[in-house]
Each structure stands twice: as C-alpha cells, then as structure tokens.
C-alpha cells in the first residue's frame, strides 16, 4: 500500500545550493552579473569595514568595562550590507534583531546612537524621526510579526514602502516567526523575512534548531517563496534581496530569504565559543571572509590595491572614535529618565512615586 502513499512534499537530505554571484576568489561566477554599481559596492565596502572597526573597538571597550554586552557582526557583514543596500532608506524600513550594524547605518542611524545603546543609555533606543527603523530587539523573534504588521499597515496607507526584518536561525524556532510569516502571507504584506543563519544561537548549533535541511523551505508553507543565498557573498545577497524588494513593492507579497553565513566572533562579549564551536566548521568559513571577497572583486574590476583597504580602515577607526566620543559627551543616564515615556499620560500613582524617588535620594 505504501506505493499509493506518495509524500507530496518530500524532504531532501540536503538543502539546495545557495545563490552565488561572487566566487571566493572575487571573480563573478559563470553567467552572473553584479546587481550593484561599482560605486555602490565601494559604499558597501565602507559600511562593512566600518562595522568591523566597531566590532574591534567595542570588544576592547567591553573588556575595560566601558560597554555592556555587545554582539559582533564579524563574518556577517556582507549578509547585512548586501540586503540593507537593496532598500531605499527614504521610504523603506529596517526592523532589527541586534546583529545588523551596517543596516542601521545605511538607514541613517548615527553611529553615536549605537554607542549609547551599548552603554545602556536610554537614548540608545531613541531612533531619530527621520530614520525608518525600529529599536533593537532583545526579545528574540518578537520583532518578526511586528514587522509583518508594520508592512501591512504601510501598505494599507497606500505607501509603497518595503520592510526588511532581520533575525537569526535561532529566532526562527519561536512561535513569533510562524505568526509573522502567517500574517504576512495572508495580507500579502510587503515584508522580507531575512533570516541570517550564522550556524549558532549562542552555543546551540544549527542542526539542533531544526531538522529541515534548509530553513528557506518554510516559505511555501505560508504561500511565499523561500530563497537560500550565500550570505558571505555581497552581490548574491543584494541580488536576491533586490528581487524580493521588487516583488514586495509590486504588491506580490512577502519573501523568505535564508542567508547562510557564519558568526566569526563570540555570541557576545561575555561568550566563549571555545566551549562549543566546531573548529573545522570555523576554519572552513574563515576562508570565506565576506570583506576580503569583495576587496578581491574590486581589485579585479576597479583597480583597487591594498592601500584602499588600509585607507578605509583608518577612516573607520577615526569615525568610531568620533562616534564614541560624541556618545560619551551626552553623559550617563539621569534618574528622571526612569519616569519618562512610560505613558503619554502617567497615572497619579506613578507621578507620586517619581516625586518621592527623585526628591529623596
């Protein structure tokens, strides 16, 4: 009888090959063309190099106790930058998890505000009015259905905005992921679910997260396509995201993108990957550095030499110092901040307590 019973939706042993545009040696793969102008790729380099400089500085500051927990982007710069640059910050939105620094900068968030975030200054979450992004989300996956609702709402208001929501492969296990995908599907909301599969959720490896060979396989279960992309390939990520943006903008609905990449740093500055990381896996990915790959491409097509990268790195270090300095000038939190922005119209009881606490000590 089992011959009658065909599994209409069989599971392959392995996921599909990811979309790739740029080979690790910086050459375009056979038949591929870049989706970005050279000037845009140079802009991407700038964001990626800046991001890595922030990582370095932040880790240093954290060791000195001058910064709270910080989640380095290292290894995922192309994944974040390539996707973010498919957006138009003048109309599109970014909904963050917490490991997407270049995307925030591309949307227009000043770097100094991020230092405020990491030092635990309340102003860290205060996104300037002109910047289309939500605050960083620490409650894993909570932002996913919110992003779907945001996209749906923007469309209901006749705007042609697109929303990209970032999250990890860990986040994709939460019920919130399912609920966000579900509502985006039925409302055809212009949202792109950008899943950064960096192989770990703190110490938990990808295979403990789900038995699916590919997480992109979840798209069709919500009536949307699912793509797998080489997340260390700036141009592939950008191309796949551009296509998803076009689809969303045209009213054709949401897309799920699984960007396969690797977290080259610790989960955050209090984590020690030596306890759980697979050294072979790490070595394989280390050879696929996303910034080096783009640099090799620029060497090939735009006449870059080593000095260009060093110059950028120098600029980035200065920019990081500047931003850090500006952030520190704001000073620390003040007790009264605790009582601000709790409600538009705070209850009497809270006002009384405020008076007591701020008056008293």
């Amino acid at each position, binding site marked *: 009888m089992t011959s009658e019973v065909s599994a209409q939706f069989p599971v392959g042993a392995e996921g599909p090959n990811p979309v790739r545009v740029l080979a690790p040696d910086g050459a375009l793969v056979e038949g591929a063309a870049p989706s970005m102008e050279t000037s845009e790729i140079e802009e991407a380099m700038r964001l990626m190099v800046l991001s890595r400089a922030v990582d370095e500085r932040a880790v240093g500051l954290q060791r000195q106790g001058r910064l709270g927990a910080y989640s380095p982007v290292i290894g995922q710069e192309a994944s974040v930058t390539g996707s973010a640059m498919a957006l138009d910050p003048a109309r599109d939105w970014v909904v963050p998890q917490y490991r997407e620094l270049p995307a925030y900068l591309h949307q227009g968030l000043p770097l100094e505000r991020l230092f405020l975030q990491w030092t635990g200054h*309340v*102003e860290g*979450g*205060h*996104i*300037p*009015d002109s910047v289309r992004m*939500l*605050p960083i989300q620490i*409650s894993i996956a*909570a932002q996913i*259905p*919110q*992003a*779907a*609702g*945001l*996209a*749906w*709402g*923007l469309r*209901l*208001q006749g705007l042609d905005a697109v929303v990209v929501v970032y999250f990890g492969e860990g986040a994709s296990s939460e*019920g*919130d992921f399912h*609920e*966000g995908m*579900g*509502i985006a599907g*039925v409302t055809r909301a212009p949202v792109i679910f950008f899943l950064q599969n960096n192989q770990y959720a703190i110490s938990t490896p990808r295979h403990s997260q789900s038995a699916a060979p590919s997480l992109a396989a979840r798209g069709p279960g919500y009536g949307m396509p699912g793509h797998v992309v080489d997340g260390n390939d700036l141009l592939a990520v950008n191309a796949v995201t551009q296509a998803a943006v076009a689809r969303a903008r045209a009213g054709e609905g949401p897309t799920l993108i699984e960007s396969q990449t690797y977290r080259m740093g610790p989960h955050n500055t209090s984590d020690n990957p030596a306890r759980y990381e697979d050294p072979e896996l790490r070595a394989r990915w280390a050879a696929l550095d996303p910034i080096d790959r783009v640099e090799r491409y620029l060497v090939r097509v735009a006449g870059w030499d080593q000095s260009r990268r060093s110059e950028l790195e120098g600029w980035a270090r200065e920019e990081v110092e500047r931003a850090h300095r500006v952030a520190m000038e704001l000073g620390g939190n003040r007790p009264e901040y605790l009582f*601000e*922005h*709790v*409600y*538009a*119209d705070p*209850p*009497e*009881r809270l006002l009384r307590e405020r008076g007591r606490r701020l008056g008293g000590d």
Partner: protein
Amino acid sequence: MPTMSVIEAIRDALQLEMARDERVVVLGQDVGALGGVFRASQGLFERFGERRVVDMPLSEGMIVSSALGLALSGLVPVAEVQFMGFTRQAFHQLTVQAARYRFRSRGRFTASLTIRSPFGGGARMPDLHADAIEAQHANAPGLKVVMPACPYDAKGMLLSAIRDPDPVLFCEPLRGYRGWREEVPEGDYTVPFGQARTVREGSDITLVAWSAAVHLAERAADRLAEEGVRCTVLDLRTLVPLDVEGLVRAVSATGRCLVVHEAPLTAGFGAEVVATIQEEAFYSLDAPIARVAAPDTPYPPGTLEDTFLPNEERVCRAARSILAA
C-alpha cells in the same frame, strides 16, 4: 436616549470611531462576516469593508503582534481576542512589547492599540473561556487595564481606549453582553480613565468591585439594605490607572471595606486594592478589609461556577462579619 446592552454600546463605539477616524481598523478572529462570536463588530464588515475589518487567522499572538505593527505604522488598531484567557497566547507581545515601545524608544514609537476581550463567569462557557486574569496584566507597566461594568461606561471607555496613545487592554463583562440595558447617549462622549465611579453611597461599609462584580456588589448591597446596612458601592472602572484617591476617600468615609472579584484570591487584583487602602487609609479602618474572590483552583466547568465564583450570599456574609468586627 436609546437604551443599550453592553454589546450594543461596544458596537456603537466601534462604528462611531471608525466613521470618525479613518485610521481605525478592527481585527480579530471571526470579526468580519460573522460580526464576532458575540456580534460586537456586527455590521462593520459590510459598512467599512475588508481592509478595515479583518478576519484574522487563529492566533492571538498574531493578532496582538500584528496590531502592534499596524500601530507602529501609524494606524489605530482595535483587536479582539475572543476570550481574555487567550491573551496568554500573546502575553509577551502585549505585556512587554506593546507596553514598552514608548519607553524603549523614548517616545519615538507608541503603541496606540486597543485589545478588547470578554471574560468572566455566568455564561457557562466551555473550559478555559471565563478566566479573569486582569491582575496578571496590571503588573505590566506601560499597559492600561480597563474594566467597564455597564453599557454607558463600555461605550465611553472604549472611545477613550481607542483614542489613548498607549496600549489598553479593554476587558468586557461577558455576563452583561446581552443584559444590563441602560440609557446610553447617541454620538460621541468619553469616560476618562482613572476615575472610580460611586454607584451608590452608604455610610456603613464600602464594597469595591469592577466589571461584572459591580452588579453583584449592588445586589448584595440591596440585600444588606434590607438588614439596615447602608453600603457604598465603588466601581474602580480602571485598574491601571488606579484611582487611589477615590478609593481612599470612599473607604475612609465608611471605615470598612470589602473587595469583590471573580479571579482567584492569591495575587488577584483585590490584593492590590487592599494593600493600597491599608497603606493610605490605615487609620480610618475600623476592621480588616476582606476579599471575596474565587478560591485558588482552576476555573471549573459551568455547573461548578456557583461554588467557584463570588455570589450574593458570600458577599453578604463577608460584609456582615466585617460589620461585626
């Protein structure tokens, strides 16, 4: 003035506000063609169309979180969660995410969203449909918890809730959906939050309640009146914000107080009421404040509701022992 039941008052508020403010959208399970399982949104789908009255998939987390997303986009969602107990499925989205957007973004983002949800006994609903969990929401700063007890308040407070720039959990007394008719003005009016309502005044004891329990307190007060006991009945109306001053005034005037609610005793909101009064009006108290609540058991099947829920007999008995103290 027309008379309305609670459900009619709610429907009236919804249609008025949808007509007045284009940003208002209604969403929830079965709120469209069916008009809601209790008909709160009846007629809205036909009048305002499927873009503004949305049948949602069966997921409370999805309803609350996408309502939050809609609010972040600039719309004004009014979401229905079919029963208050099922707000637990959306607990983090409501009590943390919606409640803290303003704070976490220093005011850049606000969650101007209303969650309507019926609760409470008396209708002999299936398992898990009547749970009163208002106290669990009241411990979530950033959220407002409002609990109208009558059609007039239901309408005026729902209009306040929808216009409130902060998230409001609007808890509806299922027991009174079809009954409790009273005169309700046509057109626009609001009932402000944080102002308790004196239902009746009497000098012997103050009965404090909210939502359906207010009616129980009134019935008990009627019975006690026959015994010559004069009760003040105070309807808190909103738990957050709490009208501390009104509460203290009403209790100080009688020196005796009884709190009545449908939720289980331990860590129910009655505890907050008692604690607040005793902190603020200790020296006016002539006797310990008592609570008449459900016992610390799960909500039982309908035929055990009479044993589980506060009733006139239990309220009167508790009042008598306070008076005898």
